[in-house]
């Protein structure tokens, strides 16, 4: 479903992604684990047509996202690290706009919005503005929205960041359910080891722009001779703390938080 070969991305002299190769099977849940600044988001951006690779090849359902951009975009859904709902609009309106943007025919649109919103337990709140939703509900709405155009793959970039354990638990239950009922391939990134352990069939550990290990949770533990995935992760990536210099995006994030208390 996803095939990546010798993928490289350079920003000036800095090599953010160094020659990585992997593939994701149809219907699989695949997790990308890595410390801050390891290259997770950069990789997702290249897979989702938002960034052009410096070299190497990417295939999404047989398509090259760099050349067949719009075709590739119809095949996947994406949930970004930062919220991307229009908080002034209602949940239903957010779904509706997505359907129009992805050319979902009107009749299908109405039926599918209702089905997905019921599935994600949001139907009763469909007429409420997204800004009145809790963090977990917003995330669920974004995932429901990303499924609207029946994509074959969904990309979830740290979807549980900032959620409480109950919401995280519920979110993954939904994702697993979706994966089973709709046979959608899931590509996710996360910081939480136990989540990857629980939902992902295979895990790639990425550090300093390269993949340092790839396999099922059991294989990774065995390979490193550790008991838990967290220990395996720390053994593979070291326990040094990564200081990311604050980018302008971080500053904006702070600002956005200050201005919208309900986020």
């Amino acid at each position, binding site marked *: 479903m996803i095939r990546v070969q010798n993928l490289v991305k350079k920003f000036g002299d800095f090599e953010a992604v160094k020659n990585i190769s992997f593939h994701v099977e149809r219907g699989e849940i695949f997790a990308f684990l890595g410390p801050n600044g390891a290259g997770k988001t950069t990789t997702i*951006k290249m897979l*989702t*047509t*938002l*960034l052009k690779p410096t070299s190497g090849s990417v295939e999404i359902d047989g398509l090259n996202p760099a050349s067949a*951009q*719009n*075709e590739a*975009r*119809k095949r996947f859904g*994406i949930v*970004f690290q*930062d*919220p*991307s*709902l*229009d*908080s*002034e*609009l209602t949940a239903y*309106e957010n779904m*509706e*706009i*997505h359907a*129009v*943007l*992805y*050319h979902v025919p009107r009749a299908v649109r109405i039926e599918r919005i209702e089905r997905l919103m019921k599935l994600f337990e949001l139907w009763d709140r469909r007429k409420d503005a997204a800004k009145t939703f809790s963090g977990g509900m917003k995330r669920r709405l974004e995932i429901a*929205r990303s499924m609207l155009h029946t994509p074959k793959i969904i990309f979830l970039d740290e979807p549980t960041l900032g959620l409480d354990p109950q919401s995280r638990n519920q979110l993954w239950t939904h994702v697993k359910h979706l994966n089973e009922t709709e046979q959608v391939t899931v590509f996710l990134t996360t910081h939480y080891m136990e989540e990857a352990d629980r939902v992902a069939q295979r895990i790639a550990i990425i550090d300093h722009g390269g993949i340092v290990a790839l396999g099922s949770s059991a294989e990774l533990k065995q390979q490193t001779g550790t008991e838990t995935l967290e220990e395996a992760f720390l053994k593979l990536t070291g326990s040094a703390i990564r200081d990311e210099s604050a980018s*302008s*995006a971080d*500053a*904006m*994030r702070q*600002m*956005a938080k200050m201005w919208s208390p309900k986020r």
Partner: protein
Amino acid sequence: MNVIYILWLREVKRYFRSRPQIIASLGQPVLYLIAFGFGMGPIFQKAGYGSYRQFMAPGIIGMSVLFMSIFSGISLLFDRQFGFLKETLVAPVPRLQIMLGRTLGSATSAIIQGSLVFVVCLIAGFRPINPATIPLALCFMAAIAIMFTALGTAIGSLLTDMQGFQLIMNFLVMPIFFLSGALYPLKNLPAAFAFVTSLDPLSYGVDGLRTVLIGSSAFGLTTDAIVMGCITLLFIGLGTYFFSKIQL
């Protein structure tokens, strides 16, 4: 087409739902009308230019359309880093359609805002010489709105953080307003200053409004219309270009 429509609709819905903001943004024009209308009125009258309130009302309408449209254009910056814009930019639709939907929607909101200010002016005692020319005034408002939403979009696409915002406000938006002749006649100015005001696109918008509403013109209606048309197209081009260059 559907895509442009739904994004247009989104902007207009957002405008109507932000009622406190609508009321707040009517405050500034009212303040100008009262402070300048009453404060400068007697001097203006004595200088033989007639009623200052009549004179400044088209300028105040132009001002509110300018502010509203340039800000909604620049608000793209917020939307882009942490909001909804991402959702539209990964959709399988051409960026041009996204830019057009947004711009037309914001411009529509600005026209509605301008019309509200027009009503406020009427309440304050402003009287257009001929009500039949009001549709023409709406055309000029639309041109001002589209022009500056497109300019705001171009700027919003270029900025990467909020630091530049204050700079734009002080060195672009306020000069555009103050040099436009919204508050004073453009006739009999020192040559160098007159030249500067003639470079300000809003001068032609306000002059157009003034021509159709109170029959007083500095450049002539044809010049106003041609200049507004050309600069609007130019800014749409700029907006489209920089919008297409946005990287997430």
